[in-house]
């Protein structure tokens, strides 16, 4: 049994009295010491999936309407609030995209880490402080014993994101969910943060779910990948298998859309059209209005998940039939 198992997750958003599905039948699992990348464009449901795992989909507008999420054998969707709180920030932690807003500006970063530690572990303030300094040096903040007393605004964006990682790691979580952790950072800083995460994983064996829109980041850091489009996983495989043979036309289109730094092309092969909005009702395959391989079948029936190669699943009526 894997550490995190998500099965047939369904999430819906309530707008103007209607319940619109935003995540449909998403399944994946992540094991210790493994990194799963979830890739997709805005509106594909990748962030909502992460929030669902962390139990952050409170409220009435967005809610989980089906499926289940099991973490370490526990059903996360039926836990009581108290049980959930004892897991969150302790055995499961999350890093958000915005390093500017996810730290409280009025408290010293050390105090924020210490509070998180003491919430879950029996430690004196002095012990927790030592631990905070240790964590800061672990995420390679220079002069950790002095920086522990800094306020968030005294640090750069990259440093703040490292503090967030330090905080997430403060209780040795078994699972780390990172939602676009480097999107707001510069490329050189991004590389440092990603290297840091990989390094920490090999040392502590943490399972990571990395959510990103950047295929490059996914390709370099993840063991396996799930590609999402409009609420569904359209293709999933081990990273090297996926990029060896892209089976879904959307994944191929996404890759061809990226202007690469290592060669010149005259024109990018862009996917035509745009990502459909939530309100638009779509029949059949959600990608069919933009797909080059579209047939009548695509417009009427939703493709089922099929095995393209062992360990490489795809949702397309014509998976891999036409070469890119």
């Amino acid at each position: 049994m894997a550490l995190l198992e998500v099965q047939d997750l369904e999430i819906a958003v309530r707008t103007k009295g209607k319940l619109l599905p935003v995540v449909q039948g998403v399944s994946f699992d992540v094991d210790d010491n493994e990194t799963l990348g979830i890739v997709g464009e805005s509106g594909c449901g990748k962030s909502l999936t992460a929030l669902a795992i962390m139990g952050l989909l409170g409220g009435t507008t967005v809610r989980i309407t089906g499926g289940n999420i099991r973490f370490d054998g526990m059903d996360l969707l039926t836990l009581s609030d108290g049980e959930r709180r004892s897991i969150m920030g302790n055995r499961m932690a999350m890093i958000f995209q915005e390093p500017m807003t996810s730290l409280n500006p009025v408290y010293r970063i050390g105090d924020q880490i210490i509070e998180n530690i003491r919430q879950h572990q029996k430690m004196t303030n002095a012990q927790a402080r030592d631990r905070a300094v240790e964590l800061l040096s672990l995420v390679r903040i220079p002069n950790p014993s002095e920086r522990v007393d800094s306020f968030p605004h005294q640090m750069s964006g990259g440093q703040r994101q490292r503090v967030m990682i330090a905080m997430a790691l403060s209780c040795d979580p078994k699972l780390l969910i990172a939602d676009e952790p480097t999107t707001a950072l510069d490329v050189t800083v991004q590389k440092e943060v990603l290297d840091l995460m990989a390094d920490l994983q090999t040392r502590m064996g943490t399972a990571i779910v990395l959510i990103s829109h950047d295929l490059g980041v996914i390709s370099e850091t993840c063991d396996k990948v799930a590609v999402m489009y409009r609420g569904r996983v359209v293709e999933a495989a081990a990273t090297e298998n996926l990029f060896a043979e892209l089976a879904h036309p959307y994944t191929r289109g996404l890759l061809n859309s990226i202007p690469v730094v290592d060669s010149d092309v005259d024109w990018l092969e862009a996917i035509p059209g745009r990502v459909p909005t939530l309100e638009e009702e779509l029949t059949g395959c959600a990608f069919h209005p933009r797909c080059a391989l579209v047939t009548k079948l695509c417009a009427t029936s939703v493709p089922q998940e099929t095995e393209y190669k062992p360990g490489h699943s795809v949702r397309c009526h014509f998976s891999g039939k036409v070469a890119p």
Partner: protein
Amino acid sequence: MTEPLLRVIDLKTHFRTKASWMFGEKQLIKAVDGVSFDIAPGEVLSLVGESGCGKSTVGRTLTHLEQATSGRALFEGRDFLVMSPNEFRPLRREIQMIFQDPFASLNPRLKIEQTLGEPLFIHGLCKTWDEARAKIAVMLETVGMDPLVMKRHPHEFSGGQRQRIGIARVMILKPKLVIADEAVSALDVSIQAQVLNLLKKLQQDSGVSMLFISHDLGVVRHISDQVAVMHEGKIVEIGRKRQIFEAPQHEYTRKLLESIPRVKIGKEVA
């Protein structure tokens, strides 16, 4: 040797920060600190660098949105940094700017035709609304939009569509120089490719010069003729695209290029 359309000589833009509430002194931030480059007619120069390197300030200074501290910028031989707002106004038609955030750069309260039409009247490019609408319709088709959208408001469009409208607003004036500040950065990958293709095609068809400001080296490689790498307010390396990407000289350029995550395509382990 052709005369450059835009020549920037030792441009400096410094800001003074506000002193903090009680303590601390005013600090001088040298956002742009001695930048020089030329853009020939019909050429695309990219300014690439990380956040805070001053690349956007260069663009904002060249459009008089920020005040230059010193240095000169010659457009067809005339220094326009020293011009008063009124002297500069006619030049605004020729030096146009595309902004990053397509959600913020269109006035939410104005119809598309108002946003696109107003500059036409300001610069006397048409006299009546009929004329203006005809021009707007042609321009909207050129950027791949249905002319009927001119009657609608910005909130009815997606990010990619808004950026097309933003491009239409700029190109409708037939400028000689377009400054594109992170023009595709806010867009999703699949939409970014469309808009990038559109920009490149419009640039090639019209022969407009472009100052393309971006942090994304892939995008820069795709669109530029020349590339200038900025770091801490200065250009550390400038040259033809091929030279910068294939034989980078400066250490910082190399570091930037190495940091980019790349997709490993194909089977490496057979």
